[in-house]
C-alpha cells in the first residue's frame, strides 16, 4: 500500500528520531511511503498571525499531495494534522473560500480538490494497518512494561473535525501498546496538555505544564511516557532537564515515540530508530525490555 507522507517543519528539521522510526517501521507493515516534493509549512505557526494565510498553506500542501494520485496521506505531526484537517473542513462547505484558495494556488499550477484522505501515525496503524498485521511483526514482545500514553491535543479535538480518536476517552494508542505486549497505564492526567504552544509567549508556563505532567507520570511509576507528536516530544524529552528545573523536581523518565516503541518490538536496531537522539533516559527502558544488555549509560 502506497501512502503519501508530509513531514511538516519540526520532524524533518530537528525531531529526526520520529522520521527515522516511521521510515523504519512502515515498510515492515506493508506501507510504502511516498515523499512529497515542494511542500512547505502546514500553516499552524501562522494561525495566530494570519488565519487566511494558514488555510492557504494547508490547502497548498493538500493540493500537492493530491497531485500524486494517491488516496491516503500520512501526517505524523499533530500540529499538521489539525491544520490540514481544519482547512479541509472549511473548504468542504465554503465554496467561496475554495474558489479564492484555488485562484491563489493557480500561481503554482496547483488545484485543491479535497479528495485525499488524511491519517495520523496512530490511526493509520490502528485502523488501516490493523491489529493482526502489527501483532505479526512483533519479534520481541514488550511483556511486563507499564507505559503511560500522551496523545497530544491536536489529534483529539475538536470533534467537529475528523479526529484521530475519541476526544475525551481516546483508546487507540492504548490498544496499539497492548498489541506489543506492554500494558498502558491508566492515569488521571492522561489528557493534560504539554504546553508547547505557549513556548513563544510564556516559556515558563509551558515548562510548568510539561513538568507537572512528567512528574505525575513518574510518580505513578510508569516505565516510560509514549508520545506521538514532535512538539510534545520536544517538551517531554528534549527539554526534560529544563522542565524539571522549572518545577523544582528531579525528572528521569524515558520518553519515546510510539513508532520507536513499535520498532523496538519489531527488533529493529535502536540506532535505526533514532533512539540515540532521545535526551531522556531511554536506555533504562531498553534494559527493562531485556533487548540490550550491552546498552551503555549515557
Amino acid at each position, binding site marked *: 500500500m502506497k501512502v503519501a507522507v508530509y513531514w511538516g*517543519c519540526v520532524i*524533518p*528539521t*530537528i525531531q*529526526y528520531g520520529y522520521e*527515522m522510526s516511521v*521510515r523504519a517501521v512502515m515498510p515492515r507493515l506493508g506501507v510504502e511511503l511516498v*515523499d512529497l*516534493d*515542494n*511542500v*512547505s*509549512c502546514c500553516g499552524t*505557526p*501562522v*494561525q*495566530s*498571525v*494570519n*488565519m*487566511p*494565510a494558514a488555510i*492557504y*498553506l494547508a490547502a*497548498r500542501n493538500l493540493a500537492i499531495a493530491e497531485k500524486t494520485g494517491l488516496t491516503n496521506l500520512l501526517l505524523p505531526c499533530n500540529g499538521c494534522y489539525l491544520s490540514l484537517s481544519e482547512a479541509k473542513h*472549511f473548504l468542504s*462547505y*465554503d465554496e467561496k473560500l475554495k474558489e479564492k484558495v484555488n485562484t*491563489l*494556488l493557480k*500561481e*503554482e499550477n496547483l488545484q485543491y480538490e479535497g479528495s485525499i484522505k488524511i491519517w495520523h501515525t496512530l490511526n493509520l496503524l490502528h485502523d488501516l494497518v490493523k491489529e493482526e498485521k502489527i501483532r505479526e511483526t512483533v519479534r520481541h514482545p514488550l511483556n511486563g512494561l507499564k507505559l503511560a500514553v500522551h496523545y497530544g*491535543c*491536536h489529534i*483529539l*479535538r*475538536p*470533534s*467537529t473535525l475528523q479526529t484521530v480518536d475519541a*476526544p*475525551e476517552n481516546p483508546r487507540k494508542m492504548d490498544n496499539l501498546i497492548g498489541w506489543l505486549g506492554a500494558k498502558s497505564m491508566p492515569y488521571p492526567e492522561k*489528557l*493534560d*496538555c504539554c*504546553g508547547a*504552544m*505557549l513556548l*513563544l*509567549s*510564556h516559556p515558563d*508556563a*509551558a515548562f*510548568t*505544564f510539561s513538568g507537572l505532567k512528567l512528574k505525575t507520570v513518574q510518580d505513578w511509576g510508569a516505565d516510560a511516557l509514549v508520545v506521538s507528536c514532535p512538539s510534545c516530544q520536544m517538551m517531554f524529552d528534549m527539554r526534560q532537564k529544563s522542565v524539571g528545573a522549572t518545577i523544582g523536581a528531579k525528572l528521569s523518565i524515558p520518553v519515546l515515540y510510539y513508532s520507536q516503541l513499535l520498532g523496538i518490538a519489531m527488533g529493529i536496531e535502536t540506532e535505526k530508530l*533514532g533512539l*540515540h*537522539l*532521545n*535526551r531522556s533516559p531511554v536506555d533504562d527502558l531498553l534494559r527493562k525490555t531485556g533487548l540490550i544488555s550491552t546498552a551503555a549509560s*549515557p
Partner: protein
Amino acid sequence: MPIKARATIPISMSITDLTTTKKPDTALRLKIIAKIGEQKPYNCFQCIRCTSGCPSMKMLELKPHEIVNLARLGFIEELLTSGILWTCATCLKCKERCPQAVAPVDLIFALRNLAVEKEVKVPESFLLSLSAILENGFIQKPQNTVTRKLERVNREKLGLPKFREPDEKFKAAFFKVLEQSQEE
C-alpha cells in the same frame, strides 16, 4: 452545517467601562464576528465550562468565558492590549466541551489576528515564524543535533534523505497571499 453569525446584535450599547469611561467598539466587534465564521459567541450562557477545564487558567489566569463576554460586549481594544490572548495553549478543550458550540479558542485566534493587524502587543516570535516561512518555506532549516553521547549528527549522517525546501515560485505566491489578506 455552519451557522452564520447574526448581523444585528441584541445587546444594549449603553455599556461603559467605568475605569476608562470607554464605550464598546461596534465596528471592531462586527469585524471579529465576521472572522470567526461558523462559531456562535452569542449563544454563550456563561456556564464557565471552558474556564474550568482550561489549563492556562491554572497557570496564567486565562478565563475563556470572560473573553467571550468582553468580545460580544464590544470591548475589543481592551482585549487586544491586555496581552491575555497570548496565554492560550490552544489545547482546544474549550471548543470541545462548550455545550453551545461557542469555541473560545477560535475567538482567541481571531483576536490575535486582529492584534497583528493593528500592531498591538504581539509577541515578536509569532511574527518571526511568519518571516521564516517566507524565507525558507518552513519555520526553520534542518538543525544539527547531538546524540546522548554528544556525537554531532545531521540528516545526512543519520541516513535521512535530503531535505527539500519549496522553490522560489512558492515564496512569490505566498507573498502575494499575505499582501492580499492585508487588503481585505
